[in-house]
């Protein structure tokens, strides 16, 4: 019974890990950075309005650049 529960919990955890992190952990990390930057700069007026979206934009650009199909090197 407990083994079945543990298996179920593991499967549940794996499902959510795959769903949220999956094969783009850099975007998950970027989200955590966005939260941290937002918390750190919230008291400043204009700076977070520019910096917080900029962090997300840079992250997705970098992740997409990493996801490009690269041509195979000539043998």
């Amino acid at each position, binding site marked *: 019974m407990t083994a079945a529960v543990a298996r179920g919990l593991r499967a549940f955890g794996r499902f959510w890990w795959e*769903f*949220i992190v*999956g094969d*783009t952990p850099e*975007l*998950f990390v*970027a*989200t*955590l950075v*966005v*939260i941290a930057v*937002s*918390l750190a*700069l*919230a*008291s400043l*007026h204009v700076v*977070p*309005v520019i910096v*917080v*979206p900029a962090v*997300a*934009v840079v*992250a*997705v*650009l970098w*992740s*997409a*650049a990493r*996801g*490009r*199909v690269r*041509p195979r090197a000539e043998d």
Partner: protein
Amino acid sequence: MKASEWVLVLAVFGASAVEMVEALTIVLAAGTSRGWRSALEGAASALAVLTAIVVLVGVPLIHYVPIDLLRVIVGALLLTLGLNWLRKAWLRASGHKALHDEDKIFAETVEELSHDGPVRPQRDAVGFAVAFKGVFLEGTEVVLIVISLGASQGRLGLAAAAAAAAALVVIVVGAIVARQLSKVPENAIKLTVGVMLSSFGIFWVGEGTGVHWPGADAFLLVLVAVFAACSALAIPWLRRSSPAQLGATT
């Protein structure tokens, strides 16, 4: 309706439409190869479970979780989903990733199901399970988006209604055109939804952590414009290094 509510409706409607097209393809394949009764029962059961999740998780979230914490959590979730959708849509639009092909998925699912033994005339467990799984897995993302956007703005009913409307439109159109689902401009919808989810994600993380957005809710439209402009620049930039482009220039 406020600007943020319009964006909410559009985002949920688009996300639900894309996921339901994918789910409908699987249900059509299950129905064609294993019988319609079991496939439709499987799809209806999955929709019932997804609705129950929205009610059981979404309503307590609105009532019992402090609003700022809720906004940071749902903002983070929306931002992660949105950035992933954007990335995938950019890579597909620029030729670095294959477009989602509903005709191919339909053919593959029918082929797989044809190896699963004889079809039972009344209730076919295989057809039921495949349709249930297809609708449930595709619908989970929609449920997350409905709960996140609905709970953070206190408009769970509006978000659920937008998702249900999209599902209904896809079902009606799917019933009429049957196997023409590959004609749906799925990547363009995915790109649009990615822009909206990312904008909402940034907006709610900022609200929850105390950032003062100029113009309050209206700043969402600025964020949408930023992510849309970024997409307009990123896709041609990525296309320059796509396999087709490199092949044409070498």
